[in-house]
């Protein structure tokens, strides 16, 4: 959206001081506000995307309580809790990175962004290596692929369908978010973000918080409720 002023005498100033707003906005603030409203609208679409999984969960949990109760026994609450903690901390670091951008604390801005991105990778790693992998190998798979010899309830494949679809979509969001944070970090290393221009960090932060928010609800629903 923004363009970089390369011609003015201030070209030696840090990049963020030279960012100008797009021509169709009247001011930088207006652009910032617009981007934020746009991001919030985008977050609503994300929530509603996940709403499908929550509805499926609620409906099938009520229909097949035994299958869901049995299914959630297969999940290890320790890994779930660890992942929750990782996401909460990463949420904190990215919120802190916004503060760093606002206060022009460039080192900690970059550090926090990088830390957040690695938290994202850690989350994905735990999910793949310690949750999906072993479960898939045991035959605890969604729907027709289900091949576990000792199901508690014959509707258990449905539980795994809901589990894999919900967490899988969430994981896809984590990975996309991680990629975006890496891009933002790269830009931060170029000095693009500072007190007058931190729209990118702000809206990426919103996105990451939403990923966290959804996990905050998925975690108890899948791991804790028996």
């Amino acid at each position, binding site marked *: 959206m923004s363009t970089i002023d390369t011609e003015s005498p201030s070209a030696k100033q840090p990049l963020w001081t030279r960012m100008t707003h*797009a021509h169709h906005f009247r001011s930088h603030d207006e652009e910032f506000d617009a981007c934020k409203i746009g991001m919030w609208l985008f977050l*609503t679409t994300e929530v509603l995307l996940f709403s499908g999984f929550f509805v499926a969960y609620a409906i099938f949990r009520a229909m097949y309580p035994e299958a869901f109760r049995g299914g959630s026994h297969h999940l290890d609450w320790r890994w779930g809790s660890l992942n929750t903690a990782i996401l909460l901390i990463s949420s904190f670091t990215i919120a802190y990175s916004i503060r760093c951008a606002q206060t022009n604390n460039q080192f900690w801005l970059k550090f926090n962004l990088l830390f957040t991105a690695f938290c994202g990778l850690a989350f994905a790693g735990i999910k793949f290596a310690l949750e999906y992998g072993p479960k898939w190998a045991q035959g605890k798979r969604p729907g027709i692929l289900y091949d576990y010899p000792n199901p508690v309830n014959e509707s258990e494949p449905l539980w795994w369908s809901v589990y894999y679809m919900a967490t899988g*979509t969430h994981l896809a969001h984590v990975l996309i978010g991680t990629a975006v944070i890496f891009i933002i970090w790269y830009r931060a290393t170029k000095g693009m973000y500072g007190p007058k221009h931190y729209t990118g960090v702000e809206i990426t932060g919103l996105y990451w918080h939403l990923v966290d928010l959804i996990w905050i609800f998925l975690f108890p629903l899948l791991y804790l409720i028996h």
Partner: protein
Amino acid sequence: MSDTSSNPDPHEFDAVDHSHDHHEGSYLEPAGGVWATIKQWALTKDHKKLGVMYMFAVLILFFLGGVAALGVRAELWEPVRYKTTTTVNDQGETVTTQEVTGQIFNVGRPKEEPVTDADGNPVLDDNGEPLTETVRVYNLQTGNETYNRMFTLHGAIMVFMVIIPSVPAALGNFFLPIMIGAKDVAFPRLNLLSWWIYVFGSIFAVASIFLGGVDTGWTFYTPYSTTTDADHWRVVYMITGAFILGFSSILTGLNFVVTVHKLRAPGMGWFDMPLFIWARYATAIIQVLATPVIGVTLLLLIMERLLHIGIFDPNLGGDPVLFQHFFWFYSHPVVYVMILPGFGILNELLAVHAHKRIFGYRAVAFASLGIAAVSFIVWGHHLFTSEGSLAATVFSALTFLVAIPTGVKMFNWIATLYKSSIVLNTPMFYALAVLFLFAIGGLTGLPLATLATDMHLHDSYFVVAHFHYVMMGGTIMAFVGGLFHWWPKMFGKMYNDRWAMVGAVLVFIGFNVTFFTQFFLGTRGMPRRYASYVDEFQIWHQISTIGSYILLVGFLIEGAVLLHAMIAGKKAPPNPWGGMSLEWETESPPIEHNFPHEPIVKHGPYDYDEVVPPHWDPKDYPLPEGAPSHHEPGHH
């Protein structure tokens, strides 16, 4: 109106300022060579170019979907029957043969057949496995399947690729920023992305046709859609196409909400916006809130087909009615994505060509929002025969709520014509036609919302006729009316109004002949999506088919008129109809950044009895007695 002492001239800040040094060219001006121009269009962030590209894409796909519809109608000219003929062969034996009549399209179906030798024994290949060959089978069933693919194609194209982007994306993109006095939409790059997503999604969906077509119906009801053509990918392609198209819709809606919130011109409060913007705003809200749900629905459906995850599959404990809830949570609000912008255009057509402020502006504006809000809680009326009786009752009661704001709009539009001054040109004819057709479409919704009668009419031709009156009579007619209304603005060329009127009348007549008969078919017991029917219905179907071909002629004339105007039309003035909203203040076609400098809004969009329209001479536009005289524009 404005305070006279501070600003005596409402056109003081008139956007077209020829004395201004900075002169920009029209947005249509090509950039150097052919490749440069192609690149300029393909990578443009200009909402006008994107709007024009959407428009042509929509028109091309409308043609494709229309051809499918004509195929459907042709197939229904006569019912599918067996014809038995008895002949005597050389040996003197009587041979009875049966052939299928009444199927004019039958693309057949490939099938693996074992190869047999003369004695009927299977031929084995080198490995000792029986040899098979692919033959193409043609029979009654494959003919019906061809028909099913045709109506699916028609429905899917018309809904996902034509009506949803028609007014919202094509005309919305072009006119929403201009009408609020903005240089562009809030996120132009997102807008470009949205367009290419639309192209990509459409390619996916259209590709499924070339791979053999899809016969799920555009509603993709499970478990049929998860089991049909089980070993082919084309159904997945179609669903993926619809899934991708959803993102285009979301991004456009999101962009427009922000644009309306942040980029209105100075002086334009919420109630100074043209009603088209209100309608488009309400539409954008629905797009943002409803479309993600079709995203997750289609995602689950794709997974259902690929992995059999079972959420909608009764064999694995899933529930097909759950799919219907998922699907209609999006697809009912999307009905209003289709019709609300049509309403918006209708406001503009009526106000401009009747030179009259829309009666009850606020009521109409709030009715748009009201319809958008109610649209989220009425989807269950698509499930009256499948859902539980309590839910049906609740949804029936809620469905009637839609009738109220819609009725308010209808009455306000009719009241707008009171004390108006009407120029009955093509856009105005379309506006009146929409009032006529939508009135029928809306009123026939009443027996469909009423539980007792819907149990009979559900999934019958009555429903088909009803939603064509609304979708086509409402949206498509308003879209075409909008094209005629804004064509001079978009391309700076006037069209031949006489021929356009001939086409419009043919479309109106053809439409009614095609679809009014279908009400009777429905009440008399014709189910929808039938390739064949009982003989009693044949006369009705034949009238309907004739009507559809009148419709074709009408649309061909309209298309020719518009193309002719683009190529060889007279140059259009900036404000040919005497409109008040901001798009009439700029050049025709608009310059690259819409306005030379930011316009400042000094009067409402419909103050026809108070202000001489921009670019008009006061003597061509006598204001009524008592109009404030200072509003006559003096200097230019």
